[in-house]
């Protein structure tokens, strides 16, 4: 690949994309596939002459197919010829870690201001996070942190809530029952 072509943004993006989608592949196979695709691309460019035009470079890239197509071919190949094996491809998208962590922090703030609403928020969030955990394939660490934080926040809010309830119960017991006459007067007012 000549320096001009290797600096072409589309070419750089293509091979960076290919590296990325094959990141989880067997290292030796990944290197072999990427080298093969690169050699193929360079070989095709040479057929255009010494100075291929931008259109010819685009055409050669298009002929390769997208990096996703190459990764899909690799993935399909390995599933068929290695039954039971899974291909640890780099997860695409599903980067829900940061939003989950933000929601957990907001929940903690809620819990600090009002344990009742805090516990309610944390419970809902915990259910949502558990049911949608596959959407965080791109940031599993952050998502796990959000899960732990939410569970911790839920327990803390519940502890505070039960603590407050028992304090109120004790103070109610200490003041004793309201005389029946006072209660009736209170209702009439």
């Amino acid at each position, binding site marked *: 690949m000549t320096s001009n072509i290797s600096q072409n943004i589309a070419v750089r993006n293509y091979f960076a994309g290919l590296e990325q989608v094959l990141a989880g592949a067997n290292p030796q196979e990944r290197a072999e596939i990427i080298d093969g695709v690169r050699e193929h691309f360079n070989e095709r460019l040479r057929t255009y002459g010494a100075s291929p035009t931008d259109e010819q470079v685009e055409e050669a890239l298009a002929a390769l*197919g997208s990096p996703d197509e190459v990764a899909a071919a690799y993935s399909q190949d390995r599933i068929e010829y290695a039954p039971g094996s899974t291909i640890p491809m780099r997860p695409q998208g599903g980067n829900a870690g940061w939003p989950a962590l933000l929601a957990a922090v907001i929940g903690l703030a809620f819990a600090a201001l009002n344990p009742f609403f805090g516990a309610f928020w944390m419970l809902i969030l915990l259910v949502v996070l558990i049911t949608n955990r596959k959407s965080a394939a791109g940031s599993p660490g952050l998502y796990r942190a959000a899960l732990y934080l939410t569970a911790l926040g839920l327990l803390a809010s519940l502890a505070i809530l039960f603590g407050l309830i028992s304090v109120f119960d004790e103070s109610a017991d200490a003041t004793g029952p309201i005389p029946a006459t006072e209660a009736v007067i209170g209702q009439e007012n």
Partner: protein
Amino acid sequence: MVATSETTVLTNLRRSTLEFCVLALLQRGPAYGLEIARGLGEEAGLFESEGTLYPLLARLRKSGYATTKWDTTADAAPRRYYAITDAGRDALQQFTNIWTTYSARVDSVLKGTQS
């Protein structure tokens, strides 16, 4: 009922036949990647795109059906040549035997349904 499109049919057929088409090409002699793609026919639909040949070629090499060798003798840049091995020839022979009978049977059934 499973929806069938031209792409689905082609994808399924490629899965079972493409590697043997590549081995058949290599049986004629060693070839580099672009030669293999052109030998298969870029417009024939035997493969999805040129880049998708390389996972297949890597597997053929890994499974012992093909070997690779660099040719540095030409004036042009070094080329990686793929060559069929004895194991590859055996696999191709086995496929050819099955395919000949199988495709004839499929043709016969398809022609029967058309008449």
